[in-house]
């Protein structure tokens, strides 16, 4: 019933199903590889993602946005099959709004996490069939506790809290090690980085991922193509414009060796 403010349930009553399992036919390369990352910095959490969508060894699109705002205080970064991931984001966006408007209060942060788990669980058959695997990173600002949080998931819907950082996608093994190194032996731990330094690190990390993973798009200055970087603080989600990233990239990321 609508009294619980459960939008997914409402959709199901109307015959909706997420991700129907279909066996992958041969000759169809699915779009899936990517690099997304999230880490806590001084004022909140930074979430970043490259912009390349690939299918096999083909570049499908170079301007994908994989860091998607679900509401004013939460962001889901997606790795995996985009069709399913976008659909999930749409369901979540409507679920949170529907809950807020019917119940006249915000869905709690834990409630939001649970909603994502449930969607991933519903999606397991499609994920195992190979057509709908999604491995998201969820980051947000918990207003009640006044702190930023990061969670990452496996394709079955298990949720893990990434205390300092989380990564996902084909390029993630490269940068996971770097994040660990930076956080442990860097000049300062990640969660003390000021905003600008956090953005520089994100650009460097994605550039490194692109160096070793062909499915991750780095920065393409000729096309003025920069990764998507979003900052989530107590004031809400903020998307960093390319005009801010460009000088940072040119002054602190490019090495003319």
């Amino acid at each position, binding site marked *: 019933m*609508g*009294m619980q403010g459960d*939008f997914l349930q*409402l*959709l199901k009553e*109307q015959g909706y199903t997420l991700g129907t399992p279909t066996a992958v036919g041969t000759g169809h390369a699915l779009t899936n590889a990517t690099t997304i990352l999230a880490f806590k910095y001084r004022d909140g959490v930074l979430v970043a993602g490259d912009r390349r969508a690939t299918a096999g060894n083909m570049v499908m699109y170079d301007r994908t946005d994989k860091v998607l705002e679900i*509401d*004013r205080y939460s962001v889901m970064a997606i790795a995996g099959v985009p069709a399913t991931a976008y659909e999930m984001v*749409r*369901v979540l966006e*409507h679920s949170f*709004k*529907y809950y*807020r*408007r*019917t119940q*006249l209060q915000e869905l709690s942060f834990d409630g939001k996490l649970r909603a994502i788990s449930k969607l991933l669980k519903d999606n397991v058959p499609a994920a195992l069939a190979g057509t709908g695997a999604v491995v998201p990173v969820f980051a947000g600002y918990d207003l009640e506790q006044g702190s930023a949080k990061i969670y990452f998931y496996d394709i079955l819907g298990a949720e893990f809290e990434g205390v300092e950082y989380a990564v996902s996608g084909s390029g993630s093994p490269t940068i996971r090690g770097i994040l660990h190194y930076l956080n442990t032996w860097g000049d300062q731990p990640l969660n003390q980085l000021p905003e600008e330094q956090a953005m520089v690190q994100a650009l460097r990390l994605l550039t490194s991922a692109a160096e070793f993973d062909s499915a991750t798009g780095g920065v393409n200055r000729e096309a003025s193509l920069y990764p998507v970087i979003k900052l989530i603080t107590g004031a*809400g989600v903020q998307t960093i414009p390319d005009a801010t990233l460009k000088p940072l990239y040119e002054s602190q990321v490019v090495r003319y060796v």
Partner: protein
Amino acid sequence: MYEEPYRWVEAVGNRRQYLDEQFKQGSPVVALTYEGGILLVTVSKGTPKLYEIYDRLALGGMGHPTDLEKLRFSLLEMAHVEGFNRSPSDVTGSRLVKYGIAPVIKQAFEEVYKAPFIVRILVAELGQKPEKDALLTINYDGTFEETTGCAVLAATPAAQTKMTAYLKEQTPATLSLEQALDLALRAWAIGSLAHQQEESDQRAETESSASGAGAAAAAIPNVDVLREHVRSIAGGRTLECAVLERQAPGTSKYRSLKPADLSRLLPKALQSVVAN
């Protein structure tokens, strides 16, 4: 016994009388477009009467809280399912009202064996452009009206006419939010005073059905009297104000005004209302 057409007409007539009676204690609702969007104002007692329905849709209601809740839920369900299956821009107030709840309300009203909805509803829709702003009102019998500029809900048609006339007469070309709030509250006071007046007229009529009651159609009181009335009624209740703001960040344009906003926006004479 309602099988005969005459009986049915009679039953529906009785129903109107019964329903009209139910709204007597109700608080009017005022919706007004201003330069930044649409403002909704009412004074509520206990249960809220203004709600967010969708990204660009707001609801105001009069009547029984449970009936209002039921209809609010059907509006929310329809809006969100449509917004998900098609797109948020396909969720329009006029579709929700005309094909959604108005037929339901009408059916309940005419099924004389069952209870009708004791509600009057106002749906405000913020258009992509100011010209597209729309206001819809639905009566307890399912009749709906679509207007622009301003719309009100009141206990009686007479009170409604007075309020609308006042709003139309006072509205300059563009209103700031402060001006709109002030004007909406004055219109609210006119409606509320009209309810009181009608009730006392009725009492006078039953007491002495002879003379005197005819003088009821008094002139519109001046601004101070109207503000004084708002102050006296809203003191013990909640002044509810909500806006659909065209420039609001993000997709959800609805925002209910907090006490801090109100004390900034209200005229001096009404500041005491916020403290409560």
